[in-house]
């Protein structure tokens, strides 16, 4: 009975604007959803959000309507997702179009919340900010426009409420800023955020914990901390097992094999490129082994070449070895210098291979 295709008249009879429009659109939306027409549902939902926002803005110094905003905006994003999928399957529509428009609407809501300076803390609309930001993050990550996250991060950083939002919201928030930090190659920061997210994520949310771990693991590995077999088994992430083994042993062959074997998984999660960064760590571990084997501070370059060839790294010559070593020295993974004339790597007598966590 509630699923009507044109409920406007009825609503206008019973409700004040803008609630009349909002409810009418909501009813039309449920009708569309029941017909699996998500494109239409999305359009209706935009009207719901717009009209809600008009009412919300008029609420002076009260925030009781926040839960409605959360529900309406969440539905908006979900319908936008579904609508895009529907269009894609028909070969129409450009990826990200509807999500971007949804993001614009969410930003309007965000502005209303963020600019609520008059109300006291208990009645402030600012409590809606983090939820909306998390929704916006989800969209920006999906449409690959991460740079749009920056102003939102700044807004939260400068907010005095930032540590008082619910744990759930903060876990989600840190998950996304952690991933953004990864993208910006700020691995120390990424580790901080993702670790927080992982530890504070409720233990019953296995799926979420696993998701966080997918991004936390590569970051930790880059900083020299390898996960235990137990951990990987517990969260069904054995794809990382071979990678871990390869990196800690300095086994480039195994690393390449592991990356190829689970390529699809890593690419889909968007961590393939970061895992490739582990190559330099693997070189470092391999060369450190060479150093320990030869027990001298003047290492012939040839030794490294032999080590690489043993790892089946083909078509590498002494010039490339020098380049790789130069890179490791530049990054601070090796303390020393190369003497081309003597064809040797001369390393410092003190701590020539500093621990990974102290570098980068």
């Amino acid at each position, binding site marked *: 009975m509630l699923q009507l295709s044109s409920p406007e008249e009825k609503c206008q009879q019973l409700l004040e604007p803008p609630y009349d429009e909002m409810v009418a659109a909501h009813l039309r939306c449920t009708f569309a959803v029941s017909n699996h027409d998500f494109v239409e549902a999305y359009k209706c939902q935009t009207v719901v959000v717009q009209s809600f926002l008009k009412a919300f803005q008029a609420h002076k110094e009260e925030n009781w309507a926040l839960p409605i905003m959360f529900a309406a905006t969440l539905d908006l994003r979900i319908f936008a997702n579904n609508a895009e999928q529907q269009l894609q399957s028909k070969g129409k529509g450009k990826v990200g179009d509807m999500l971007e428009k949804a993001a614009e609407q969410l930003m309007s809501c965000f502005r209303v919340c963020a600019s609520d300076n008059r109300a006291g803390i208990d009645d402030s609309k600012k409590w809606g900010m983090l939820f909306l930001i998390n929704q916006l993050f989800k969209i920006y990550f999906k449409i690959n426009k991460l740079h749009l996250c920056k102003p939102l991060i700044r807004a939260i950083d400068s907010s005095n409420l930032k540590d008082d939002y619910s744990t759930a919201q903060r876990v989600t928030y840190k998950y996304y800023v952690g991933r953004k930090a990864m993208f910006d190659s700020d691995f120390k920061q990424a580790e901080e955020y993702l670790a927080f997210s992982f530890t504070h994520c409720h233990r019953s949310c296995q799926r979420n914990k696993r998701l966080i771990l997918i991004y936390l693991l590569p970051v930790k590995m880059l900083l020299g901390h390898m996960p235990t077999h137990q951990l990987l088994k517990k969260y069904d992430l054995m794809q990382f097992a071979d990678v871990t083994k390869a990196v800690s042993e300095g086994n480039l062959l195994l690393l390449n094999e592991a990356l190829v074997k689970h390529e699809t998984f890593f*690419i889909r999660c968007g961590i393939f*490129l970061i895992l*490739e960064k582990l190559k330099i760590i693997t070189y470092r571990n391999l060369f450190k082994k060479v150093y320990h084997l030869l027990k001298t501070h003047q290492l012939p370059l040839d030794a490294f070449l032999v080590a690489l060839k043993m790892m089946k790294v083909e078509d590498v010559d002494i010039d490339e070895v*020098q*380049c790789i070593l*130069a*890179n490791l020295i530049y990054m601070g993974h090796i303390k020393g210098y190369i003497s*081309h004339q003597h064809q040797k790597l001369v390393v410092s007598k003190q701590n020539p291979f500093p621990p990974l966590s102290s570098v980068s």
Partner: protein
Amino acid sequence: MTYNCLTTGDQSELSLRQVTSEELLSTRPMNKTAMSSAWHQSRRGRGHRHKEQGRVTRERVEEQRAEDSVPHGTCMTMCPAYELRQREAQNRLHRFEMVADTERDRLPRADVSRAVKEYSRPAAGKDSTRASDLRPPSVLLKTACHLVDDIAASSTFQPWAEVYSFVFDRLRSVRQDMIIQRVSGPDCVAVLEKSVRFLLYASYRLCGQQLQYFDPRINDTHLQECLSWLLESYRDGKHQHQEEFQALSLLYNLGSTEAIQHVLELPERIRSSPAVRLALAVSRAHMERNPVRLLRLAQRLDFIQVCAVHRHLLPCRTDLLLLYSHGHSSRNCRYPLQRLARLLFLKDTLAAELCQVYGVNVTGEWVNFSKSSFTDAVSGELQCRSMHEPLDDEQWNCSAGSVIHGCA
């Protein structure tokens, strides 16, 4: 003050809503949806400063309501008759469009077989959707072929900077016609592929020219637009040259995580093609910060691929100097200049010059690396151009044809 406003917020029915004057007058985006999209559209046209500066972009056209019919061109010549007569009468023909031997007349005559529709900025009051002014896809492809094959690739027209300017403008107009008519499919792909090859070639040939003849940033903007449109078009159906252009896009955007991620998500068949594999290898060398490997792999690229990647090669070379300045930093050690030049794939003299600009000490045949002496040069001191193959106009023209035709 509130007004009753007929809006078409819901596309299936008109509804009467009350709109405040603030909403009507406000230009803030959050109020955009409170007004009819048509009303907002007309505001956009009237000289409002927008980032796109009034360009007809794909997004804007898609915003037009569904009930608008898509224009279908009927102009079967490369230049619409109306424009041809107008430009001829106003002496606004380009040199390449004139009948031979009339160039120096007071009013040169237009050669119908060579005149091409100009690009013109959309403006309020100007109707760019008149069918008689729009060229259908088959004509657009013919036009693109004429521009690239007969003019850009030919050695008859000098100087090439003028050729570039003409072809650039006319190709832009071709793409504009495609946008207005929402052309897609094989013709669209063919036009875009030709545009990309042309723009890539130009970016190499005219690299370092004065800004008035060639602006690399403008060339880059158009190149990126064409590439993203082309890659988007590749999503549907099979395309003969897709591998080649996926590789070119990756090389042109060397270092871009987005570009690499895009290639990694391509179907296995395309990813394993030789062109894409090579481009990925170059990309990997760049990511691993191994300039020695990168420059070596670059030797295996064909000419158009070099055009795509060349702007990244100078930064790659300076990176090598930076890494070696740290890795080989020692007061007593020396590195042979000749060997360094070979690694850089430059002549000895040019290698020495590069070192000098970046603060790397060269004495005779020897280089002394020192991490404290390397300095990041002010950009512009050493031009990318000096690293190019030194070809004069004639040598360029011989290769132009084969390069641009490429996948004819």
